[in-house]
Structure formats: C-alpha cells, structure tokens
C-alpha cells in the first residue's frame, strides 16, 4: 500500500505512469483527507496548550507580563485559596461521584426490568435534567434553597426541622446544596449509558442465575456490575473530569459559598482572570494544575479497573 515508485509494469509507456500515479495518488489522497483535521487540531488544540504553558511561566498585572520561570508553580503550594479550592473540589469528587454512579446503576437496573410500565416516561423524566441549561437550573436551585425558599418551607411545615437550614449561607450545607444540584443533573446522563449497556447483556445469564437460586442483590453484584465494568469505568472518568472542572453550579448557586467554602478550582481561575486584578499567568498555572489532577485521577481509575493501559 505504500506509494513506492517501483512497480514499473511491463506494458506500453503510458501504462508505467498510470501505475505509479495511482499508488501515489492513493497515498496523497489519504493524507489530504487527514491533513485538514490534523492542521485544525494542532492549531486549535495543541497550539493553545503550548501557549497556555508559556503563559503559566509568566506573571504580572494585565498585559505587563514578565517571565518568572516556575515561580507560579511554587506559589500554588502556599496559596491558601488554591488549597481550599482543591479541597472543596475533592470533597465534591469523593462524595458526589460514587453516590451518582450507584444511583444511576440502581435506576438503570430498575428501569430495565420487563415488569415496569411507563418505562419511557420514567427514563425521559430522569434524563430531562441533563438537557436543561446549566445556568437556568442553578439559578432556580439558588431560589429553592434560599433561607426562605421552598425547601426550607417544606421541611419546616413537615416539622422535620425547627429552624430554617442555611442551604446557601452555611459552609457545610452550601457544599451539600452543590452536591445535590450536580447529582440531580447528571444522574440521568450516566443512567442512559448504563441502560444501553444493559441491553447488551444476554437475558439467559440472568435466567440461569435465577434457576441457580441467586437473589436480586446477588444478580446485581455478581453479574450486572462485572459485565458493566468498562462502561462504569468510562462514566466515572467522565464524571471525574466534569467534577474537577466544575464551574457553572458553583458560580450561580453560591458564588463560591460563604467565604470560599464552595469555591472550585475553575471558579478560582475565573476570579484570578476577571474578578481580581487580572493575573493571567497565574491563572494559566492553576489550569495546568487541573490538567495534572485529571491525568492522575484517570490513571488511578484505569489501574483500579484492572485494565492494561
């Protein structure tokens, strides 16, 4: 398949050129199709990445940027705002992602059962949050969970609590609110992935298990989960990446929470670039910190799932 110029066929003069040019043309045509995408990817993907790294080596106010080498990276370790942002993001990650995945798994198994009627309605209802605008639903959550919002009103009326909970004004409850918001939004998304994967599991495996006397729980843990492992790995990595880049909910519901109790790393980058006196170099450094974290977490998850990378 390579366009080697050998292959001079033994025929009339014109025949020789045709053989050569067909092979070359195939190769060149192939490259032509690919080169457009390659150029665009390099220009819009790799070039900005390199420039961002370049920017992270500079520091200064607004457009007065000077090279400072790795000082920005050293600053990350002593920056308490950054450390708080990372801690908050980790809390969201460790609490929210497992809860969401387990919830999505349970829902998908329930919605996959043959005996359930109105399956389409339930699936649509649970998936609908994913297509809402991030900002719109965040603002509504903000008003639902306000001190005199509907949620507090409901809890007070049902006598579950006797003083309104500060969902947005208390450092602990603000984190809970954010976690609730993210879970509400993304559970349906992951559930759809699991549903489609479940369709691929052969019914006969379940029937065999039932005949052998397995309980529903046993079927779930010993059949469903191992067979869904690749898709669980996929969704958990996607969720990790999404949570590490969390911005919209935090910005719109709590704006970083009382103080910086709910500030996420992306929100810190926004603050550094647009809220405070802009230090674009340091902001680029923080964004590279996110890249490093994503790489580490993805690698850990691949190893935990036992796949050879």
């Amino acid at each position, binding site marked *: 398949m390579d366009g080697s110029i050998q292959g001079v066929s033994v025929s009339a003069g014109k025949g020789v050129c045709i053989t050569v040019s067909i092979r070359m043309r195939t190769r060149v045509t192939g490259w032509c199709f690919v080169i457009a995408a390659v150029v665009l990817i390099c220009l819009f993907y790799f070039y900005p990445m390199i420039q961002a790294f370049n920017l992270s080596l500079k*520091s200064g*106010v*607004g*457009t*007065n940027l000077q090279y400072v080498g790795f000082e920005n990276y050293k*600053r990350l370790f*002593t*920056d*308490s*705002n950054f450390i708080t942002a990372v801690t908050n993001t980790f809390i969201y990650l460790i609490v929210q992602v497992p809860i969401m995945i387990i919830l999505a798994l349970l829902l998908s198994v329930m919605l996959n059962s043959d005996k359930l009627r109105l399956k389409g309605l339930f699936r649509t209802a649970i998936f609908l949050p994913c297509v809402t605008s991030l900002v719109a639903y965040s603002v509504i959550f*903000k008003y639902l969970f*306000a*001190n005199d919002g509907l949620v507090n009103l409901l809890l007070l009326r049902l006598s579950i609590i006797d003083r309104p909970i*500060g969902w*947005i*004004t208390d*450092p602990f409850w603000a984190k809970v609110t954010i976690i609730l918001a993210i879970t509400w939004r993304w559970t349906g998304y992951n559930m759809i992935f699991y549903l489609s994967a479940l369709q691929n599991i052969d019914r006969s495996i379940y029937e065999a298990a039932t005949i052998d006397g397995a309980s529903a729980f046993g079927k779930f843990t010993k059949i469903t989960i191992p067979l869904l492992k690749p898709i669980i790995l996929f969704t958990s990595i996607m969720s990790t990446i999404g949570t590490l880049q969390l911005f919209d909910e935090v910005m719109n519901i709590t*704006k*970083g929470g*009382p*103080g*910086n*109790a709910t500030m996420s790393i992306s929100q810190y980058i926004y*603050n550094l*670039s*647009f*809220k*405070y*006196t*802009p*230090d*674009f170099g340091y902001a680029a450094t923080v964004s590279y910190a996110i890249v490093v974290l994503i790489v580490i977490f993805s690698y850990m998850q691949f190893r935990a799932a036992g796949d050879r990378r």
Partner: protein
Amino acid sequence: MKKWLTVVLAVVLLLSACSSGGGNKQDSSSGGGNGGGDNGGSASGGKEAAEITIWAWDPNFNIKALNIAKERYSKINPDVKINIVENAQADIIQKLNTGLGSGTTTGLPNIVLIEDYRAQSFLKAFPDMFYELTDTFNAADFAEYKVGPTSVDGRNYGLPFDSGVTGLFVRTDYLAEAGYSPDDLQALTWNEFIEIGKNVKEATGKDMLSLDPNDLGIIRVMIQTAGKWYLDENGEKPFLAGNEALKEAFQLYKEMMEADIVKPNADWSQFVAAFNSGDVASVPTGNWINASIKAESSQAGKWAVVPIPRLAGQPGSVNASNLGGSSWYVLNVPGKEAAADFLAKTFGSDVEFYQELVTEIGAIGTYIPASTGEAYSAADPFYNGQKTIADFAKWTEDIPRVNFGAHTYVIEDILVVEMQNYLNGKPLDDALNDAQKQAEAQVR
C-alpha cells in the same frame, strides 16, 4: 423520507455552524443592539468619530443618565451617533479584562463606566489603553475624594460620576414604635445603632438591616468614616493587621450578628426585597439605593434619611462615608476625542444636566457647581418632605478621602473568609493576622 430528513438535518447543522461565525454571541442582560454596537462602534470610529459606544450597567440609574446626556448633547453636536449598551457590571468587567488583556481593540467601547474600587486595577494593569482626560475638564470642580481613584500620577483618566455618599435610610414608623424619631439619630455611633436595633426588634419584631455574608460593604462604609481602607495610604500594601478601624468594624459586625438584628440575604434582589417587603427597619448604604426604595410606592412617607453612624473608637471618625460610586473612562480606541468631548460637554460642565439627573433619577453627581441648582434643594415627599439631596450633597463634602488602591476585591474575598472564622470563634487578632499574610501573598 429518511433520506430527505437526513439532508435537512445536515443542512441545518451546516447553517448553524456558519451563522455563529459572524459577530460575537456574547451574553448580555438586555440585548439592545449590543451585537451591532460592539462591532459597529469601533469599526466606524475610524471615520473621524461619527459614532461612539458606551458601556454601563443599571438601566434605572446609569443608563437613564446616559440617555439624558445623549439628548442634551445631540443639541450641541447632532452629527455624533451615540450607542448605549447595557450589560451587568460583572459582565462589563469580564469583557474589559478579556478585550484589554488580549490587546485587540475591536469590540471595545469608547466610553466605559468603571467602579472606583476597581478603577486603579484597570489603570495600572492596562496603562496604554486609557485616554488621558486631564485637559478636557476641570478636575477642581469635582469632589476631592473622587479625583484620587480616577487619576494616575496626577493625570486624570476618569471623569467622576455618581456620588456613593452613604446615608442611613430608616423606617420612621418602626422607629416610632420603639420610641425614636429621626431627630434622635443625627449623630449616631455604630454602637448606638446596634442599641436602637435591639429596641426596634423588641418593639416591632423586625430586623434592623439585611446583610450578605459574601459582601463586606458595610465594613467598607465603617472604615471609610475613619479615613481608613484595606490598603495603606499609598494604596499599595495590605493594611489589615494593626488596622484599628478595621478591628472595630469587625467587632461591630459580630455584635450585630449576635444581637440577632440582621436578616441575611444571598444576592441583590433578596437585599432589595428585604426592605421593599418591610422586613427591615433600616438600610445603611449608598444614596443610590434611593431608586430601589422608592420602587415600593406603598411605603411613601414612611422613610427618612439620617447621617451614617461613625466609629466611636476612632478619633476623627465622621458621620459621612462612601459606598460604590463610579466614573467614566475613555478607552484609547478610534473615536476617543469625540468621546472625551461628549463627556466634557455633559457630565463635565453642564449644571442643568445634573439638575435633570436629580429630578428624573434621583442621581447625585459629584460636580460641585451643580449643588447650587434648584433640584438640589428640593424637598422629597417620599421622605416626608426631607431635603434629601441637599443632605447628601452636604455629607459628600465630609467624606474622608481614601486611596482605594487596585486590590479591594481580592482583599475583601480574603476578609470574607476570615470574618466567617471570626464569627465562629476565632480570635480577632489571629483572623486579621492571617488575612494580612494571605493578602500579602496574593497581592503582587
């Protein structure tokens, strides 16, 4: 049928991909031709300044003021087309930072409104992007405390606009129930304010004020009465540890929270709803809240304005302070001379214009000659006939001058965290020392 559908979908996809190529699809609050304004403004600015674009926020205040100015200017110079674009303040800051940071000037306006707390950070971060206004207007005609934040090294870059002079707006009916009248409140200290708050709460069950835990505006008001700020006199280094005024302000804040006279709010609309619905008895803030207070017309006649309380523990603290306030800046893009001329002929020298601002919007400028006009001595029926504008103008003269520096918001974010720690039991000195260390690391 399926094939046809596929073709239609593909065409729709292609069209939507093409359409977003032209013009910026930036989010803005109430559109209003911002797409055309962004590109049209600076693009045709090259043709000897026939068109200028202005960015500002708040349709009830700044935008209205601009419309009045536009009308007046069109009589002086009808050839200039003025586009007024409204965006939320946070969006304007973001767009300015992006535009100025990237170095491209297309899409930038000719005139932009910038809050005084933020102005220095822009002037220092992008020194070549602002057009000097020193010779276009007489800086001595403006309140002294506004000239500092709008200049760099003695050169004026901003034309001062609204006065953020603060007052204590009080519900006279709630106060009367607790046994107070506005005359008793003319020279309060913050400690007395808290006492009154407790009595009002007992008598009426209403909170005295509403605060947002993420916004330490009231701290800023308190420390400016004593002539102090988050930064030292040069506006360079953070001055948190050892700042006696700040310490007292923090203590007063904690006292207010512990006296249970504060209704918490989470954003601007909840803040406004607190007094519009009659849940709070007072609003200690800038005079610009006037428009929002008057929005609830059923409360007419029940409000009065008294001087803002001062810090009892700081010698030299006065019953006058400032919160917010912005100024107009001209960007160094084509059309700057026309823009500067527009500003100079309206905001910079037109006394009648300032009277209109007062009567139409209730906006108080910082142009000193304007206070001789008649609108400034009018009695306001909403406030029971009190001459509020005259009072505000009088207090404006007493506002202690402070160098806001370029880092107010960074430091305030740090202080918000430490305030929460302090409210939860951390010793005040530790909180301020930690804040000082963090601020020094963050501010470069």
